[in-house]
Protein backbone atom coordinates (compact mmCIF):
# COMPACT_ATOMS: atom_id res chain seq x y z
CA UNK A 1 0.00 0.00 0.00
CA UNK A 2 1.59 3.27 -1.03
CA UNK A 3 2.34 5.59 1.86
CA UNK A 4 2.55 9.29 1.49
CA UNK A 5 6.02 10.31 2.49
CA UNK A 6 6.30 13.97 3.24
CA UNK A 7 9.33 14.00 5.48
CA UNK A 8 12.85 14.86 4.71
CA UNK A 9 14.36 17.02 2.07
CA UNK A 10 13.84 15.87 -1.46
CA UNK A 11 11.09 13.49 -0.50
CA UNK A 12 8.11 15.74 -0.49
CA UNK A 13 4.82 14.32 -1.49
CA UNK A 14 2.04 16.22 -3.17
CA UNK A 15 0.59 16.83 0.27
CA UNK A 16 3.77 18.38 1.58
CA UNK A 17 4.44 22.05 1.82
CA UNK A 18 7.73 23.75 1.06
CA UNK A 19 8.29 24.97 4.61
CA UNK A 20 8.47 21.39 5.89
CA UNK A 21 12.08 21.30 4.81
CA UNK A 22 13.38 22.94 7.95
CA UNK A 23 12.52 20.10 10.25
CA UNK A 24 15.65 19.98 12.36
CA UNK A 25 14.64 22.93 14.48
CA UNK A 26 11.27 21.38 15.14
CA UNK A 27 12.78 18.05 16.06
CA UNK A 28 14.98 19.70 18.65
CA UNK A 29 12.13 21.53 20.27
CA UNK A 30 9.74 18.59 20.27
CA UNK A 31 12.33 16.14 21.61
CA UNK A 32 12.56 18.05 24.87
CA UNK A 33 8.86 17.43 25.44
CA UNK A 34 8.92 13.74 24.66
CA UNK A 35 10.72 11.53 27.13
CA UNK A 36 10.36 7.75 27.08
CA UNK A 37 8.73 5.78 28.53
CA UNK A 38 6.03 8.43 29.11
CA UNK A 39 6.20 9.61 25.54
CA UNK A 40 7.25 7.43 22.68
CA UNK A 41 5.82 9.24 19.74
CA UNK A 42 5.02 12.89 19.30
CA UNK A 43 3.10 14.46 16.51
CA UNK A 44 4.68 17.78 15.74
CA UNK A 45 2.02 19.89 14.17
CA UNK A 46 2.85 22.54 11.68
CA UNK A 47 0.62 24.83 9.75
CA UNK A 48 -1.58 22.53 7.65
CA UNK A 49 0.73 19.51 8.01
CA UNK A 50 2.26 17.07 10.46
CA UNK A 51 5.55 15.48 11.32
CA UNK A 52 5.47 12.35 13.41
CA UNK A 53 8.61 12.01 15.48
CA UNK A 54 9.35 9.04 17.61
CA UNK A 55 12.06 7.14 19.45
CA UNK A 56 13.61 4.28 17.58
CA UNK A 57 14.82 0.98 19.06
CA UNK A 58 18.33 2.34 18.83
CA UNK A 59 17.45 5.31 21.02
CA UNK A 60 17.31 7.95 18.33
CA UNK A 61 14.58 10.52 18.05
CA UNK A 62 13.72 10.92 14.44
CA UNK A 63 10.86 11.59 12.05
CA UNK A 64 8.83 8.71 10.77
CA UNK A 65 6.82 8.25 7.71
CA UNK A 66 3.16 8.52 8.13
CA UNK A 67 0.01 8.51 6.13
CA UNK A 68 -1.37 12.00 6.25
CA UNK A 69 -4.77 11.13 4.93
CA UNK A 70 -5.25 8.46 7.55
CA UNK A 71 -4.12 10.74 10.32
CA UNK A 72 -6.40 13.54 9.19
CA UNK A 73 -9.30 11.12 8.88
CA UNK A 74 -8.79 9.96 12.47
CA UNK A 75 -8.44 13.42 13.95
CA UNK A 76 -11.14 15.84 14.86
CA UNK A 77 -10.50 19.31 13.50
CA UNK A 78 -10.53 20.75 16.98
CA UNK A 79 -7.74 18.39 18.04
CA UNK A 80 -5.40 19.78 15.48
CA UNK A 81 -3.29 22.46 17.05
CA UNK A 82 -1.18 24.43 14.68
CA UNK A 83 2.09 25.66 16.09
CA UNK A 84 3.24 29.02 14.90
CA UNK A 85 5.86 31.67 15.34
CA UNK A 86 4.85 34.24 17.96
CA UNK A 87 2.59 37.09 17.03
CA UNK A 88 3.39 40.60 18.30
CA UNK A 89 3.17 40.34 22.11
CA UNK A 90 0.90 42.55 24.20
CA UNK A 91 2.89 44.62 26.70
CA UNK A 92 1.65 46.84 29.53
CA UNK A 93 3.58 48.92 32.08
CA UNK A 94 2.13 50.58 35.15
CA UNK A 95 3.12 52.17 38.43
CA UNK A 96 0.73 51.28 41.23
CA UNK A 97 3.29 52.01 43.96
CA UNK A 98 4.62 55.44 42.97
CA UNK A 99 7.25 56.69 43.69
CA UNK A 100 8.90 53.32 44.33
CA UNK A 101 8.84 51.95 40.80
CA UNK A 102 6.75 50.34 38.10
CA UNK A 103 6.07 46.91 36.62
CA UNK A 104 5.58 45.57 33.10
CA UNK A 105 3.53 42.54 32.19
CA UNK A 106 2.94 40.79 28.90
CA UNK A 107 1.18 37.97 27.07
CA UNK A 108 0.77 36.58 23.58
CA UNK A 109 -2.49 37.34 21.80
CA UNK A 110 -2.70 33.77 20.46
CA UNK A 111 -0.98 30.59 21.70
CA UNK A 112 1.90 29.09 19.74
CA UNK A 113 1.63 25.56 21.28
CA UNK A 114 5.39 25.38 21.62
CA UNK A 115 7.63 26.91 24.30
CA UNK A 116 8.34 30.63 24.06
CA UNK A 117 11.04 32.68 25.73
CA UNK A 118 10.67 36.37 26.60
CA UNK A 119 13.36 38.98 26.91
CA UNK A 120 12.66 42.49 28.16
CA UNK A 121 14.89 45.56 28.01
CA UNK A 122 14.27 48.93 29.68
CA UNK A 123 16.13 52.07 28.71
CA UNK A 124 15.88 55.46 30.38
CA UNK A 125 17.67 57.96 28.18
CA UNK A 126 20.99 56.26 27.61
CA UNK A 127 20.84 54.15 30.73
CA UNK A 128 19.95 50.45 30.70
CA UNK A 129 17.78 49.45 33.62
CA UNK A 130 17.26 46.00 35.08
CA UNK A 131 13.72 44.66 35.14
CA UNK A 132 13.64 42.01 37.85
CA UNK A 133 11.40 39.12 36.95
CA UNK A 134 8.65 38.26 39.39
CA UNK A 135 8.35 34.67 40.54
CA UNK A 136 4.59 34.89 40.26
CA UNK A 137 3.25 35.69 37.80
CA UNK A 138 5.97 34.64 35.40
CA UNK A 139 5.08 37.14 32.70
CA UNK A 140 5.92 40.18 34.80
CA UNK A 141 8.95 42.15 35.99
CA UNK A 142 9.45 45.25 38.11
CA UNK A 143 11.81 48.21 38.08
CA UNK A 144 12.79 50.63 40.82
CA UNK A 145 12.82 54.32 39.93
CA UNK A 146 16.35 55.67 40.19
CA UNK A 147 15.20 59.21 39.42
CA UNK A 148 11.97 61.09 39.98
CA UNK A 149 10.45 63.99 38.04
CA UNK A 150 12.41 63.17 34.89
CA UNK A 151 11.23 64.42 31.48
CA UNK A 152 13.24 61.68 29.77
CA UNK A 153 11.00 58.90 28.52
CA UNK A 154 11.31 55.20 29.35
CA UNK A 155 11.55 52.76 26.45
CA UNK A 156 10.59 49.13 27.08
CA UNK A 157 11.15 46.47 24.42
CA UNK A 158 9.81 42.94 24.78
CA UNK A 159 11.08 40.20 22.43
CA UNK A 160 9.46 36.77 22.28
CA UNK A 161 11.19 33.86 20.56
CA UNK A 162 10.25 30.27 19.79
CA UNK A 163 11.46 27.53 17.47
CA UNK A 164 9.54 28.95 14.56
CA UNK A 165 10.45 32.64 14.84
CA UNK A 166 10.46 35.79 16.92
CA UNK A 167 8.53 38.99 17.37
CA UNK A 168 8.73 42.09 19.52
CA UNK A 169 6.91 45.19 20.69
CA UNK A 170 8.08 48.50 22.16
CA UNK A 171 6.44 50.85 24.63
CA UNK A 172 7.62 54.42 25.27
CA UNK A 173 6.20 56.50 28.11
CA UNK A 174 6.75 59.30 30.61
CA UNK A 175 7.24 58.66 34.32
CA UNK A 176 3.89 60.28 35.18
CA UNK A 177 1.78 58.74 32.45
CA UNK A 178 1.79 55.17 33.79
CA UNK A 179 0.94 56.03 37.39
CA UNK A 180 -2.33 54.25 38.20
CA UNK A 181 -3.10 53.20 41.78
CA UNK A 182 -4.92 50.03 42.70
CA UNK A 183 -8.58 50.53 43.67
CA UNK A 184 -9.44 51.67 47.21
CA UNK A 185 -9.88 48.85 49.72
CA UNK A 186 -12.32 47.97 52.48
CA UNK A 187 -15.18 50.04 51.09
CA UNK A 188 -18.03 50.12 53.61
CA UNK A 189 -21.43 51.76 53.23
CA UNK A 190 -23.82 52.11 56.16
CA UNK A 191 -27.19 53.73 56.74
CA UNK A 192 -27.30 56.74 59.05
CA UNK A 193 -29.79 56.26 61.92
CA UNK A 194 -32.82 58.51 61.70
CA UNK A 195 -31.76 59.79 58.28
CA UNK A 196 -33.74 58.16 55.49
CA UNK A 197 -31.78 59.86 52.69
CA UNK A 198 -28.23 59.39 53.89
CA UNK A 199 -25.59 56.74 53.48
CA UNK A 200 -22.18 56.90 55.11
CA UNK A 201 -19.38 55.55 52.92
CA UNK A 202 -15.80 54.92 54.04
CA UNK A 203 -12.77 53.24 52.45
CA UNK A 204 -9.03 52.87 52.77
CA UNK A 205 -6.08 53.75 50.56
CA UNK A 206 -4.89 50.78 48.49
CA UNK A 207 -2.29 48.91 50.51
CA UNK A 208 0.09 48.90 47.52
CA UNK A 209 0.36 52.73 47.60
CA UNK A 210 3.48 53.19 49.73
CA UNK A 211 3.27 56.77 51.04
CA UNK A 212 -0.19 58.35 50.96
CA UNK A 213 0.93 61.14 53.27
CA UNK A 214 3.55 62.46 50.88
CA UNK A 215 1.72 61.34 47.75
CA UNK A 216 -1.93 61.76 48.67
CA UNK A 217 -4.69 60.22 46.63
CA UNK A 218 -7.93 61.79 45.58
CA UNK A 219 -11.09 59.75 45.12
CA UNK A 220 -14.08 59.44 42.86
CA UNK A 221 -17.22 57.95 44.30
CA UNK A 222 -20.14 56.72 42.20
CA UNK A 223 -23.50 55.48 43.45
CA UNK A 224 -26.92 54.65 42.12
CA UNK A 225 -30.06 52.84 43.29
CA UNK A 226 -30.22 49.32 41.88
CA UNK A 227 -33.42 50.16 40.07
CA UNK A 228 -31.78 52.93 38.02
CA UNK A 229 -28.95 52.84 35.46
CA UNK A 230 -27.60 56.34 35.91
CA UNK A 231 -24.72 56.92 38.31
CA UNK A 232 -24.23 59.91 40.54
CA UNK A 233 -20.59 61.01 40.86
CA UNK A 234 -18.67 62.84 43.56
CA UNK A 235 -14.98 63.77 43.41
CA UNK A 236 -13.26 64.08 46.78
CA UNK A 237 -9.89 65.74 47.12
CA UNK A 238 -9.15 64.50 50.63
CA UNK A 239 -10.37 62.14 53.26
CA UNK A 240 -11.48 58.55 53.00
CA UNK A 241 -15.14 58.94 53.78
CA UNK A 242 -18.20 60.66 52.41
CA UNK A 243 -21.86 60.97 53.34
CA UNK A 244 -24.38 60.64 50.54
CA UNK A 245 -27.26 62.97 51.37
CA UNK A 246 -29.59 62.55 48.42
CA UNK A 247 -30.33 58.86 48.46
CA UNK A 248 -33.86 57.74 47.68
CA UNK A 249 -35.50 56.58 50.88
CA UNK A 250 -35.84 52.84 51.20
CA UNK A 251 -33.95 51.99 47.99
CA UNK A 252 -30.96 49.70 47.87
CA UNK A 253 -27.84 51.40 46.52
CA UNK A 254 -24.70 50.17 44.82
CA UNK A 255 -21.55 52.18 45.57
CA UNK A 256 -17.99 52.13 44.20
CA UNK A 257 -14.84 54.22 44.70
CA UNK A 258 -11.79 54.89 42.49
CA UNK A 259 -8.48 56.53 43.36
CA UNK A 260 -5.90 58.71 41.61
CA UNK A 261 -2.70 60.40 42.67
CA UNK A 262 -3.57 63.99 43.52
CA UNK A 263 -1.28 65.41 40.86
CA UNK A 264 -0.36 62.85 38.17
CA UNK A 265 -1.41 59.72 36.34
CA UNK A 266 -4.80 58.14 35.77
CA UNK A 267 -7.72 56.84 37.80
CA UNK A 268 -7.67 53.36 39.25
CA UNK A 269 -10.21 50.74 38.32
CA UNK A 270 -13.41 50.87 40.36
CA UNK A 271 -13.36 49.20 43.76
CA UNK A 272 -15.41 46.17 44.62
CA UNK A 273 -19.06 47.29 44.75
CA UNK A 274 -20.88 47.52 48.07
CA UNK A 275 -24.60 47.64 48.68
CA UNK A 276 -26.52 49.59 51.29
CA UNK A 277 -30.03 50.83 51.95
CA UNK A 278 -30.74 54.08 53.82
CA UNK A 279 -32.33 53.91 57.27
CA UNK A 280 -36.08 53.59 57.30
CA UNK A 281 -38.43 54.14 60.23
CA UNK A 282 -40.07 51.02 61.65
CA UNK A 283 -43.86 51.17 61.11
CA UNK A 284 -45.58 51.99 64.47
CA UNK A 285 -48.75 50.05 65.53
CA UNK A 286 -51.86 52.09 66.37
CA UNK A 287 -52.93 51.75 70.06
CA UNK A 288 -56.35 52.30 71.66
CA UNK A 289 -56.90 54.67 74.56
CA UNK A 290 -57.54 51.71 76.88
CA UNK A 291 -54.13 50.16 76.02
CA UNK A 292 -52.40 53.44 76.68
CA UNK A 293 -54.09 53.84 80.08
CA UNK A 294 -53.17 50.26 81.00
CA UNK A 295 -49.54 50.92 80.42
CA UNK A 296 -49.43 54.20 82.31
CA UNK A 297 -48.15 54.14 85.85
CA UNK A 298 -50.65 53.21 88.56
CA UNK A 299 -48.68 54.95 91.29
CA UNK A 300 -51.00 57.93 91.39
CA UNK A 301 -54.72 57.79 91.99
CA UNK A 302 -55.48 60.64 89.64
CA UNK A 303 -56.14 60.03 85.97
CA UNK A 304 -53.19 60.69 83.69
CA UNK A 305 -54.14 61.95 80.27
CA UNK A 306 -52.68 60.13 77.21
CA UNK A 307 -49.54 61.74 75.71
CA UNK A 308 -51.36 63.27 72.77
CA UNK A 309 -53.46 65.43 74.98
CA UNK A 310 -50.53 66.53 77.13
CA UNK A 311 -48.94 68.45 74.31
CA UNK A 312 -51.90 70.72 73.89
CA UNK A 313 -51.87 74.18 75.35
CA UNK A 314 -55.00 76.15 75.62
CA UNK A 315 -53.60 78.86 73.42
CA UNK A 316 -52.92 76.39 70.61
CA UNK A 317 -56.49 75.32 70.07
CA UNK A 318 -58.09 75.56 66.65
CA UNK A 319 -61.79 75.56 66.10
CA UNK A 320 -64.40 75.74 68.77
CA UNK A 321 -66.86 73.65 70.70
CA UNK A 322 -66.91 69.90 70.29
CA UNK A 323 -64.63 70.07 67.25
CA UNK A 324 -61.88 72.05 68.95
CA UNK A 325 -58.51 70.47 68.11
CA UNK A 326 -55.09 71.72 69.14
CA UNK A 327 -52.45 72.33 66.49
CA UNK A 328 -50.07 69.71 67.70
CA UNK A 329 -52.68 67.00 68.08
CA UNK A 330 -53.90 67.86 64.64
CA UNK A 331 -50.40 67.45 63.21
CA UNK A 332 -50.05 64.05 64.88
CA UNK A 333 -53.34 62.91 63.47
CA UNK A 334 -52.39 64.22 60.04
CA UNK A 335 -49.05 62.39 60.15
CA UNK A 336 -50.72 59.10 60.96
CA UNK A 337 -53.22 59.68 58.20
CA UNK A 338 -50.40 60.14 55.62
CA UNK A 339 -48.70 56.97 56.85
CA UNK A 340 -51.73 54.89 56.16
CA UNK A 341 -52.67 56.36 52.78
Amino acid sequence: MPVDNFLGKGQLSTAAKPWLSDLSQLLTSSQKDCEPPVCIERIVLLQEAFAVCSWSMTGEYEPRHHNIRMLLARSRPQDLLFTSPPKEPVLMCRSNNYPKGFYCSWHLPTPTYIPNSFNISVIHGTKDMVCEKDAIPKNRCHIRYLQLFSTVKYKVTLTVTNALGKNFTTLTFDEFAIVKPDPPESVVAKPVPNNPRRLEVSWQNPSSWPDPESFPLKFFLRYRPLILDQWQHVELSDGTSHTITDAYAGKEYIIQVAAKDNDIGTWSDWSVAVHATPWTEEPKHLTTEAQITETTSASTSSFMAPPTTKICDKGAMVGSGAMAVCWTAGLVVAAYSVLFI
Partner: protein
Amino acid sequence: MAAADSPSAALRRDLCSRGIRLAGKMRADVVDLLDAYVEQQGLDASASVAAVEGVPLAAVERWDEQTGTQRLLENLAAYRAFRALLAQMLEEQREQLGEADAGLGRALAAVLLQVSAFTYHLEELLRLESRGIPGEEEEEEDGPPPPPRLSLFEQKLRGLGVLRELAQWAVRSVRDLRQLAKPSPATGAAPGLAESP
Protein backbone atom coordinates in the same frame (compact mmCIF):
# COMPACT_ATOMS: atom_id res chain seq x y z
CA MET B 1 -1.60 63.88 72.88
CA ALA B 2 0.44 65.84 70.31
CA ALA B 3 2.33 68.91 71.48
CA ALA B 4 0.88 72.22 70.33
CA ASP B 5 2.54 73.66 67.22
CA SER B 6 4.89 76.57 67.71
CA PRO B 7 3.87 79.77 65.89
CA SER B 8 6.70 79.37 63.40
CA ALA B 9 5.68 75.77 62.70
CA ALA B 10 2.11 76.87 62.10
CA LEU B 11 3.32 79.68 59.83
CA ARG B 12 5.55 77.30 57.91
CA ARG B 13 2.67 74.91 57.45
CA ASP B 14 0.51 77.76 56.23
CA LEU B 15 3.19 78.96 53.80
CA CYS B 16 3.64 75.40 52.54
CA SER B 17 -0.11 75.00 51.98
CA ARG B 18 -0.28 78.24 50.03
CA GLY B 19 2.82 77.27 48.12
CA ILE B 20 1.23 73.94 47.21
CA ARG B 21 -1.82 75.74 45.82
CA LEU B 22 0.39 78.18 43.90
CA ALA B 23 2.44 75.37 42.42
CA GLY B 24 -0.68 73.39 41.53
CA LYS B 25 -2.23 76.33 39.68
CA MET B 26 1.10 77.09 38.01
CA ARG B 27 1.39 73.54 36.78
CA ALA B 28 -2.10 73.55 35.29
CA ASP B 29 -1.34 76.80 33.44
CA VAL B 30 2.04 75.56 32.24
CA VAL B 31 0.45 72.39 30.83
CA ASP B 32 -2.09 74.49 28.92
CA LEU B 33 0.68 76.80 27.74
CA LEU B 34 2.73 73.83 26.61
CA ASP B 35 -0.12 72.57 24.43
CA ALA B 36 -0.61 76.00 22.89
CA TYR B 37 3.13 76.48 22.41
CA VAL B 38 3.58 73.15 20.61
CA GLU B 39 0.69 73.88 18.29
CA GLN B 40 1.56 77.45 17.47
CA GLN B 41 5.26 76.85 17.05
CA GLY B 42 4.58 73.91 14.72
CA LEU B 43 6.43 71.41 16.92
CA ASP B 44 5.89 67.70 17.48
CA ALA B 45 4.56 67.19 21.00
CA SER B 46 6.38 63.87 21.31
CA ALA B 47 9.74 65.23 20.15
CA SER B 48 12.60 64.52 22.50
CA VAL B 49 14.50 67.61 23.46
CA ALA B 50 18.05 67.22 24.69
CA ALA B 51 18.86 68.91 27.96
CA VAL B 52 19.57 72.56 27.19
CA GLU B 53 22.25 74.42 29.05
CA GLY B 54 20.78 76.70 31.64
CA VAL B 55 17.44 74.92 31.95
CA PRO B 56 17.19 73.44 35.45
CA LEU B 57 16.33 69.73 35.34
CA ALA B 58 13.64 68.56 37.72
CA ALA B 59 14.98 65.00 37.69
CA VAL B 60 16.56 64.04 40.99
CA GLU B 61 17.98 60.87 42.55
CA ARG B 62 17.21 59.92 46.15
CA TRP B 63 14.56 62.61 46.35
CA ASP B 64 13.17 61.11 49.55
CA GLU B 65 16.53 61.60 51.29
CA GLN B 66 16.79 65.35 50.70
CA THR B 67 16.69 67.69 53.68
CA GLY B 68 14.23 70.54 53.87
CA THR B 69 16.98 73.07 53.21
CA GLN B 70 18.12 71.25 50.11
CA ARG B 71 14.58 71.19 48.80
CA LEU B 72 14.06 74.91 49.30
CA LEU B 73 17.41 75.91 47.88
CA GLU B 74 17.08 73.72 44.80
CA ASN B 75 13.56 74.99 44.19
CA LEU B 76 14.68 78.59 44.59
CA ALA B 77 17.58 78.19 42.17
CA ALA B 78 15.33 76.52 39.63
CA TYR B 79 12.56 79.11 39.68
CA ARG B 80 15.00 81.99 39.50
CA ALA B 81 16.41 80.39 36.38
CA PHE B 82 12.92 79.87 34.96
CA ARG B 83 12.08 83.48 35.63
CA ALA B 84 14.99 84.57 33.44
CA LEU B 85 14.29 81.94 30.78
CA LEU B 86 10.62 82.82 30.50
CA ALA B 87 11.45 86.52 30.25
CA GLN B 88 13.82 85.68 27.41
CA MET B 89 11.16 83.53 25.70
CA LEU B 90 8.67 86.37 25.97
CA GLU B 91 11.12 88.78 24.39
CA GLU B 92 11.90 86.35 21.57
CA GLN B 93 8.20 85.75 21.05
CA ARG B 94 7.56 89.43 20.64
CA GLU B 95 10.45 89.78 18.21
CA GLN B 96 9.32 86.83 16.11
CA LEU B 97 5.62 87.35 15.98
CA GLY B 98 4.96 90.87 17.21
CA GLU B 99 1.27 91.14 17.84
CA ALA B 100 0.43 88.19 15.61
CA ASP B 101 0.29 85.83 18.54
CA ALA B 102 -0.80 87.94 21.47
CA GLY B 103 -2.56 84.99 23.10
CA LEU B 104 0.62 82.98 23.47
CA GLY B 105 2.47 86.06 24.68
CA ARG B 106 -0.19 86.74 27.31
CA ALA B 107 -0.09 83.12 28.49
CA LEU B 108 3.70 83.28 28.74
CA ALA B 109 3.49 86.51 30.70
CA ALA B 110 0.91 84.99 33.08
CA VAL B 111 3.14 82.00 33.77
CA LEU B 112 6.13 84.29 34.26
CA LEU B 113 4.14 86.18 36.87
CA GLN B 114 3.30 82.97 38.70
CA VAL B 115 6.93 81.88 38.61
CA SER B 116 7.96 85.22 40.08
CA ALA B 117 5.33 84.90 42.81
CA PHE B 118 6.43 81.38 43.63
CA THR B 119 10.05 82.47 43.78
CA TYR B 120 9.12 85.12 46.30
CA HIS B 121 7.15 82.53 48.26
CA LEU B 122 10.20 80.28 48.46
CA GLU B 123 12.28 83.20 49.68
CA GLU B 124 9.69 83.78 52.41
CA LEU B 125 10.01 80.16 53.51
CA LEU B 126 13.76 80.47 53.67
CA ARG B 127 13.50 83.71 55.62
CA LEU B 128 11.18 81.98 58.06
CA GLU B 129 13.92 79.53 58.82
CA SER B 130 16.39 82.39 59.22
CA ARG B 131 18.37 80.87 56.39
CA GLY B 132 20.40 83.20 54.27
CA ILE B 133 18.84 83.59 50.85
CA PRO B 134 21.47 83.06 48.16
CA GLY B 135 21.98 86.23 46.17
CA GLU B 136 21.18 86.01 42.52
CA GLU B 137 24.28 88.00 41.68
CA GLU B 138 26.35 85.35 43.42
CA GLU B 139 24.81 82.63 41.33
CA GLU B 140 25.33 84.54 38.12
CA GLU B 141 29.01 84.98 38.87
CA ASP B 142 29.38 81.24 39.19
CA GLY B 143 27.14 80.48 36.27
CA PRO B 144 28.25 79.79 32.70
CA PRO B 145 28.73 82.62 30.20
CA PRO B 146 25.63 83.47 28.13
CA PRO B 147 25.22 81.06 25.21
CA PRO B 148 25.48 82.28 21.62
CA ARG B 149 22.26 83.49 19.99
CA LEU B 150 20.17 80.57 18.79
CA SER B 151 18.45 80.10 15.47
CA LEU B 152 14.67 80.41 15.35
CA PHE B 153 14.20 76.65 15.38
CA GLU B 154 16.64 76.24 18.25
CA GLN B 155 14.76 78.92 20.17
CA LYS B 156 11.52 76.99 19.68
CA LEU B 157 13.07 73.72 20.86
CA ARG B 158 14.61 75.39 23.86
CA GLY B 159 11.23 76.93 24.68
CA LEU B 160 9.70 73.45 24.54
CA GLY B 161 12.38 72.17 26.89
CA VAL B 162 11.87 75.08 29.28
CA LEU B 163 8.13 74.54 29.53
CA ARG B 164 8.44 70.77 29.92
CA GLU B 165 10.93 71.09 32.75
CA LEU B 166 8.86 73.81 34.38
CA ALA B 167 5.83 71.51 34.37
CA GLN B 168 7.89 68.79 36.06
CA TRP B 169 9.29 71.26 38.57
CA ALA B 170 5.79 72.36 39.49
CA VAL B 171 4.91 68.76 40.41
CA ARG B 172 8.18 68.33 42.27
CA SER B 173 7.59 71.58 44.20
CA VAL B 174 4.20 70.35 45.37
CA ARG B 175 5.83 67.17 46.65
CA ASP B 176 8.71 69.09 48.24
CA LEU B 177 6.37 71.45 50.07
CA ARG B 178 4.28 68.52 51.33
CA GLN B 179 7.44 67.04 52.80
CA LEU B 180 8.29 70.37 54.40
CA ALA B 181 4.82 70.71 55.88
CA LYS B 182 4.98 67.33 57.59
CA PRO B 183 5.07 67.51 61.38
CA SER B 184 8.06 66.02 63.12
CA PRO B 185 7.17 62.60 64.53
CA ALA B 186 9.00 63.32 67.82
CA THR B 187 7.54 66.62 68.88
CA GLY B 188 4.48 67.00 66.72
CA ALA B 189 5.91 70.28 65.41
CA ALA B 190 7.17 70.78 61.88
CA PRO B 191 10.76 69.61 61.49
CA GLY B 192 13.69 71.97 61.21
CA LEU B 193 14.88 72.28 57.65
CA ALA B 194 18.31 70.94 58.48
CA GLU B 195 16.80 67.68 59.59
CA SER B 196 16.22 64.85 57.18
CA PRO B 197 12.67 64.78 55.80
